[in-house]
């Protein structure tokens, strides 16, 4: 059975250029970049080259880029690091559709005396800018709002959000793991930006946090004082090299974003021909180029995904049955007025540039069959 991989929002296949860069770095630059000998200096140079590429991509300077183990760590560092550094301000604003690592970092602080405002989103998943403006208070330390939503693909207008934050003197952080290299993103759009490599064909286990010059963070990991003392630990030169290579590869293939958008829109249009189906998230340029998320009334997502899996198709669902907590997707709940049926019946497909129309047509047929089959045995009349 041929695998049709449509779960690139979960993770991607590493690209050959990144693999080659990792291999080369492991061979030539294995030394500790903190060492004083020539091998260490060479490794350090290789590492700093990768940092510079990332900085350039965002329009930042290299000292503003801290390597981390990925999106989760970058988000934790931004939120907790800033909070620990500024104990007098105890109010944080986030949206209701943040990734779990932002949500749970905020909730962890909430249990320790912080006040968190979780902003509503509209039915397409956009935060309410008026509500944001009204929510920022003198003791508001941080606003953290996800750029491209990992479940429903909605892209927030970062410029507008940042303007409000600047005007009202709150620091703005955005989680851009999903949008990095897929949508316009720069250091002009936020004070702190989280990115990672494995969502864009780089290696797993490496990410970065852009921290605007002047913003102080308390480190979460104390140690040898690496990376300006913000993130101690021997640096992973090979992973950084792989990250860099994946970015360069993505930049070479700008045209592929347009192709992906077209394939995405073809998928959405075709899938919505299935009766009683609803698109989750925004449309057009306000949607991640690779994200498709549709709810089917009367069926449960894990069952749909299981039937598709039997055809070789990899996708994901916002159904509670597929989550570790048995809670349905908080993102779909937030955009649907807490409709359990919408959340349980949601299926997400996330493309990569290498998916073909043929694969999509096969998937659309399998999807229509799966929904039909499950509706036939569903007690819900739809």
């Amino acid at each position, binding site marked *: 059975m041929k695998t049709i991989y449509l779960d690139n929002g979960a993770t991607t296949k590493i690209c050959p250029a990144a693999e080659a860069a990792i291999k080369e770095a492991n061979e030539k630059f294995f030394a500790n970049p903190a060492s004083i000998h020539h091998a260490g200096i060479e490794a350090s140079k290789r590492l700093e080259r990768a940092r510079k590429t990332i900085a350039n991509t965002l329009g930042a300077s290299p000292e503003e880029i801290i390597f981390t183990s990925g999106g989760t760590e970058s988000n934790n560092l931004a939120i907790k690091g800033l909070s620990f550094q500024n104990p007098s301000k105890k109010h944080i604003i986030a949206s209701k559709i943040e990734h779990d690592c932002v949500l749970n970092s905020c909730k962890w602080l909430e249990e320790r005396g912080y006040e968190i405002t979780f902003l509503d989103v509209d039915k397409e998943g956009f935060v309410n800018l008026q509500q944001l403006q009204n929510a920022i208070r003198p003791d508001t330390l941080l606003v953290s709002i996800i750029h491209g939503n990992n479940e429903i693909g909605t892209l927030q207008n970062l410029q507008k959000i940042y303007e409000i934050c600047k005007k009202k003197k709150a620091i703005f952080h955005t989680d851009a793991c999903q949008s990095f290299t897929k949508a316009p993103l720069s250091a002009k759009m936020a004070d702190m930006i989280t990115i990672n490599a494995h969502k864009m064909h780089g290696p797993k286990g490496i990410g970065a946090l852009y921290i605007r010059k002047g913003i102080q963070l308390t480190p979460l990991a104390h140690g040898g004082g690496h990376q300006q003392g913000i993130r101690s630990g021997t640096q992973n030169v090979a992973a950084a090299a792989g990250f860099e290579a994946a970015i360069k590869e993505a930049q070479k293939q700008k045209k592929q974003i347009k192709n992906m958008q077209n394939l995405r829109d073809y998928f959405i249009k075709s899938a919505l021909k299935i009766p009683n189906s609803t698109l989750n998230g925004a449309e057009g340029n306000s949607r991640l180029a690779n994200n498709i998320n549709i709810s089917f009334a*009367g*069926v*449960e997502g*894990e*069952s749909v995904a*299981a*039937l598709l899996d*039997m055809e070789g198709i990899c996708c994901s669902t916002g*159904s*509670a*049955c*597929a989550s*570790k907590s*048995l809670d*349905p997707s908080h993102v779909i709940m937030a955009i649907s007025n807490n409709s*359990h*049926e919408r959340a*349980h019946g949601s299926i997400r497909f996330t493309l990569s540039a290498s998916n073909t129309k043929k694969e999509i047509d096969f998937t659309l047929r399998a999807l229509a069959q799966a929904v039909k089959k499950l509706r*036939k*045995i*569903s*007690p*819900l009349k739809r």
Partner: protein
Amino acid sequence: MYNKKVISRFKKPKFAGEIKNADAVGEVGNLKCGDIMRVYIKVKEGKISQIKFKTYGCVAAIASSDILCELAKGKTLEEAQKITGRDVLKEVGEVPALKVHCSILAQNALKKAIEEYKKKSQ
């Protein structure tokens, strides 16, 4: 994640569907938890002569509904009423811990159907 039996019963359930002129119907679950099971029965000489189910839910929920129907078919109402979640689980085999709760719902729908039948025929 699921064993072969669960997958095959999910893929090709033997008892899926409805009985148009059922003697009784029992339903459990709700949209909030994401599982709804409805069991239809026909009774002949005190025994379950026909049984079908309709289930909204995950792989485990659908497979265990089907297995419950198999366990209940041909049994007297008294016997069928005594089928427990554990009996169903024994037939289902290994399921992930989080899926146990949806695997032991189906027999409650059957119990409700039997109760309804008994009430009706009093």
